[in-house]
């Protein structure tokens, strides 16, 4: 790729759109999360601020912006402020390679999958840095849990994605989308059901969402890695959680659900509808299942997801080689 003015303008425009998307996503998803939680528990959820409580998150965001960021005594200042920044900023880069539509892709890259998998690892690092630097026993335990969880759940995630990449013979996300047809039975959901199931479970582990939200674990760790964070530091971690939810939902939509190719009128809206439904599923799951214990979390991963992922990868390789 030669660097010229056109490429730079395209990248900057894509980055601006992505930042707008991520902020809007956090605002809407926090509202949706509270609304769904309320409905599942047979109460109305936020309904006072704006129509149906829609402006509630905006007001919350303004409150968080205005709050003082309390810095704990004897903490590591550099790492303490680096943590939330590190949690949020790699996300902007990762969204560049996601093919939202046939033409709406920030950066066409033959190694898109590799880039995403490399930068998704930053989230575990950000949680470790934040929890470690805050000089708090809960933060430290949460950080340690986050690391062992991130290390564990990235492996089956990558195995599931690799099976799809084997089948398509490419790491380019646009080509992976195009390899699937418009109809559901042409999607990788049907061709790679086991990989989809593994990916679906790993989505929750990778984004630290319930039932795998042990790094925060309110009941035993008060807030886990973000115990000591307030104001915008907390808000950035909060945004990073919803952003990583959006990321894995888009990845699942692109890898397994046909991306922008829908049953009718293929286009960019299908990517967003599929990702939105997956995010709603993640919220639904959070308010349905209790949190697993840490040994259960690692047992699910090392005893089931990893062997099944390897088996699936071997079978895929075998089938692709022989036929």
């Amino acid at each position: 790729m030669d660097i010229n003015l056109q490429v730079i303008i395209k990248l900057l425009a894509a980055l601006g759109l992505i930042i707008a998307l991520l902020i809007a996503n956090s605002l809407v998803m926090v509202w949706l999360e509270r609304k769904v939680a309320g409905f599942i528990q047979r109460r109305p959820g936020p309904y006072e601020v704006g129509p149906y409580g829609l402006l509630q998150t905006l007001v919350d965001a303004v409150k968080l912006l205005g709050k003082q960021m309390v810095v704990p005594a004897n903490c590591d200042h550099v790492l303490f402020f680096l943590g939330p920044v590190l949690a949020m900023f790699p996300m902007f880069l990762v969204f560049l390679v996601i093919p939202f539509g046939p033409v709406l892709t920030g950066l066409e890259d033959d190694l898109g999958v590799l880039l995403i998998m490399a930068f998704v690892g930053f989230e575990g690092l950000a949680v470790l840095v934040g929890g470690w630097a805050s000089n708090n026993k809960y933060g430290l335990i949460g950080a340690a849990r986050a690391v062992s969880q991130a290390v564990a759940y990235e492996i089956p995630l990558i195995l599931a994605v690799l099976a799809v990449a084997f089948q398509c013979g490419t790491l380019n996300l646009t080509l992976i989308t195009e390899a699937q047809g418009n109809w559901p039975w042409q999607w990788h959901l049907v061709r790679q059901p086991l990989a989809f199931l593994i990916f679906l479970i790993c989505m929750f582990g990778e984004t630290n969402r319930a039932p795998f939200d042990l790094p925060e674990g309110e009941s035993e760790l008060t807030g886990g890695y973000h115990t000591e964070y307030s104001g915008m530091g907390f808000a950035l971690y909060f945004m990073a959680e919803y952003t990583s939810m959006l990321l894995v939902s888009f990845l699942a939509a692109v890898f397994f659900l046909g991306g922008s190719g829908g049953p009718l009128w293929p286009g960019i809206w299908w990517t967003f509808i599929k990702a939105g439904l997956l995010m709603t599923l993640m919220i639904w799951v959070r308010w349905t299942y209790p949190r697993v214990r840490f040994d259960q979390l690692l047992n699910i991963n090392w005893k089931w997801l990893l062997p099944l992922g390897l088996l699936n990868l071997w079978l895929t390789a075998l089938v692709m080689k022989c036929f």
Partner: protein
Amino acid sequence: MLKAVVDNLKGLWSLLVGLWVTGRYGLGPFPYWLGLKSFGYPQLTTHYPRQTIRDEDLVTFRGPVELVPAEDNPALSRCVSCQICVKACPSASLTVVKGADKAPRQWLSDFSLCSLCGTCVEVCPAGALRFSRDLYWVVEKREDLVRDLLARLAGGGKGRVAA
């Protein structure tokens, strides 16, 4: 090995059952709002400042203690000023001053001390105490938490009488 696989498949099925249970409640209000009341599950909370809970739904509510009106005169108490409740109260929140002919002259309950344990209701030999249904009782000063229960009874025992 086979048993573990079967157990895990059963576990996956139970996860789907759980999703059905919460999803049913999550989507429950929508048919209710559309008029299909037999399909839906209404929301169960009360939007407090605009709605209040009906009195018949308050039968199990245990509010601050109040005096039971006497059979012959609802403005008077059944209390015989025996002081058993005063001695039984673990946090000394009750004050009963005996007047003429066993009837109490003053009957104070300090709600800032009361923990609603109900011991006074249990020990009363005359059946003169019970839990009230004062759900929306609000005071602005700590002193207002001391309630004159005789005056409350004389005033009909209803409403948001603070003193």
